[in-house]
């Protein structure tokens, strides 16, 4: 029996039927990682001892016939910018190379309580800044569909680990598409929840008004299970949303026949790969065939989303990353002879500890916030952000959800876009508006071009994760039946 390609529910049934134990399951995954991750490089740290101690705990409960949670004993992989107590947490940066997390992120606290097994920490673009996972200080993760190609970023390690069956499910984080793009490129399911739905406590901050943690899974059913486990109000995150509001919104009933699906015309423009476009349009046709009403809509400020995103996210990042000075934690790189003052310590630790893209973004953000430029860049971007939000509010008066491609292309070749930062930034063109507006969005595989997967994006109204998951399931059922 192959234990590593089961869904969460099937694994759970196997555990309670005693077809296999949690320890056997953990062993199966760790062996597979040992054999196959050399070529993919999805993990940065393997937390073997933690994994086995969690698995033994669950086996004990099963033998005593205690009720166990759906996620109990399920082996998971966690993006290495989410803190797991006593496990190294690097954010794929040299400046945190030897940093050991001193506490659990709220999502980890919740998953541990559910009894999940944590196999290890996965690769990412340094501090989640990138669209290809090539900005990791510890090497690029390769796409399991084609090892010459990127996984997408920044949660590339998590998406690759799920795609290659190196874990049951994974957590990623999404600031401008960092869950959805790699999910799309690797052919797995990824959900970026509504801003405020999942606590950010213990997530290494990149851009605090945009960051959200979310699941990367093999199926939509798995996605819902993990989402339900990690979401909820948290006093440790001041932007966490009170659950009362959420419940009111999640009890929405719907039938595919009554569904109004919006297709934003700005997301179907020239420059898009013809094969990708075909797959997306074919997916839309499937919904139409089931009776959904397809309506062309317009989000007129879409073209400004990318500059707005890069101004806001780099500004927030320049402030968030000011804390990394190598003094209180992280490896101090300073050669003692060269350093005269505290300022020298900062300059040298940060100059040597951060990689090129992180430095570039700190510089951009510092510039955008600096005296004389604040109004022209940061304030202007915040105002255009309002217009982008209003675009969505307007179309959601006419339609229930939006369908778009996740990316204009399939996974590109490793090294193809590393010479020009701006070309790389354009990979995020269809995912960033969602973060600016704080909306939930799902990426799910809707077809293949050669060996490579195409991702369909389903964007919902705030707090309607349940609905977009259900809508995604309709397509998943059609495609897998």
């Amino acid at each position, binding site marked *: 029996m192959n234990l590593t390609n089961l869904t969460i529910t099937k694994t759970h049934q196997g555990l309670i039927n005693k077809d296999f134990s949690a320890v056997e399951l953990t062993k199966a995954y760790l062996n597979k990682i040992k054999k196959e991750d050399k070529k993919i490089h999805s993990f940065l740290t393997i937390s073997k001892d933690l994994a086995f101690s969690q698995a033994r705990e669950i086996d004990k409960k099963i033998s005593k016939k205690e009720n166990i949670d759906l996620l109990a004993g399920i082996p998971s992989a966690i993006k290495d910018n989410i803190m797991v107590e006593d496990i190294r947490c690097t954010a794929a940066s040299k400046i945190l190379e030897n940093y050991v997390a001193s506490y659990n992120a709220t999502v980890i606290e919740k998953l541990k309580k559910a009894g999940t097994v944590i196999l290890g920490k996965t690769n990412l673009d340094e501090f989640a800044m990138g669209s290809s996972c090539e900005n990791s200080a510890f090497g690029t993760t390769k796409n399991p569909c084609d090892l010459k190609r990127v996984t997408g970023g920044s949660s590339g390690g998590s998406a690759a680990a799920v795609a290659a069956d190196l874990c049951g499910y994974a957590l990623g984080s999404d600031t401008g598409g960092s869950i959805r793009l790699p999910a799309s490129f690797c052919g797995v399911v990824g959900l970026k929840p509504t801003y405020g739905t999942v606590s950010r406590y213990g997530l290494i901050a990149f851009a605090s008004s945009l960051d959200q943690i979310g699941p990367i899974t093999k199926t939509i059913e798995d996605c819902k299970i993990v989402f339900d486990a990690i979401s909820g109000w948290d006093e440790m995150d001041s932007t966490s949303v009170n659950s009362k509001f959420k419940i009111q919104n999640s009890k929405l009933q719907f039938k595919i026949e009554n569904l109004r699906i919006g297709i934003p015309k700005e997301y179907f423009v020239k420059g898009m790969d013809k094969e990708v476009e075909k797959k997306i349009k074919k997916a839309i046709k499937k919904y139409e065939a089931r009776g959904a009403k397809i309506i062309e809509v317009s989000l007129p400020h879409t073209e400004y989303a990318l500059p707005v995103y890069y101004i806001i996210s780099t500004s927030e990042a320049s402030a968030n990353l000011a804390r990394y000075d190598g003094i209180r934690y992280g490896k101090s790189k300073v050669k003692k002879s060269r350093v005269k003052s*505290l300022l020298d310590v900062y300059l*040298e630790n940060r*100059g040597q500890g*951060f990689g090129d893209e992180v430095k570039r973004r700190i510089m951009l953000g510092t510039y955008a916030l600096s005296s004389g430029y604040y109004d022209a860049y940061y304030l*202007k971007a915040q105002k255009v952000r309002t217009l982008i939000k209003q675009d969505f509010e307007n179309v959601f008066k006419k339609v229930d959800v939006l369908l778009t491609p996740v990316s204009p292309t399939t996974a590109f070749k490793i090294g193809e876009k590393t010479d020009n930062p701006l070309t790389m930034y354009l990979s995020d063109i269809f995912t960033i508006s969602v973060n600016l507006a704080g909306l939930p969005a799902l990426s799910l595989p809707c077809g293949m071009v050669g060996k490579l997967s195409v991702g369909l994006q389903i964007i919902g109204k705030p707090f309607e994760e349940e609905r977009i998951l259900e809508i995604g399931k309709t397509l998943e059922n059609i495609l897998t039946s």
Partner: protein
Amino acid sequence: MIDVEHIAKLARLEISQDEVEKMRNELSSILDYFDSLKKVDVKKVKPSSHSFSVENVMREDLPKKQPKEKNDKLLKAMPEKKGRYLKVKSVL
């Protein structure tokens, strides 16, 4: 023209001479791209700091007693220390 050395100093980043030139070119082309925002009329638009309105969350500013193990973990992470104190370079 962006003054790379000045911004690097504000950002507390040491940048080599080679990097200054490269960064100037890269940042200039990104900033040119940002200029497309000049076209947007925002005269009557309010800025959004978040996707929905966020209010300050207040609580009493009281110290919470932490177990010694927690403190030990934080101390262990420090690259340089003296006893149970963090050691830094002199400021003056």
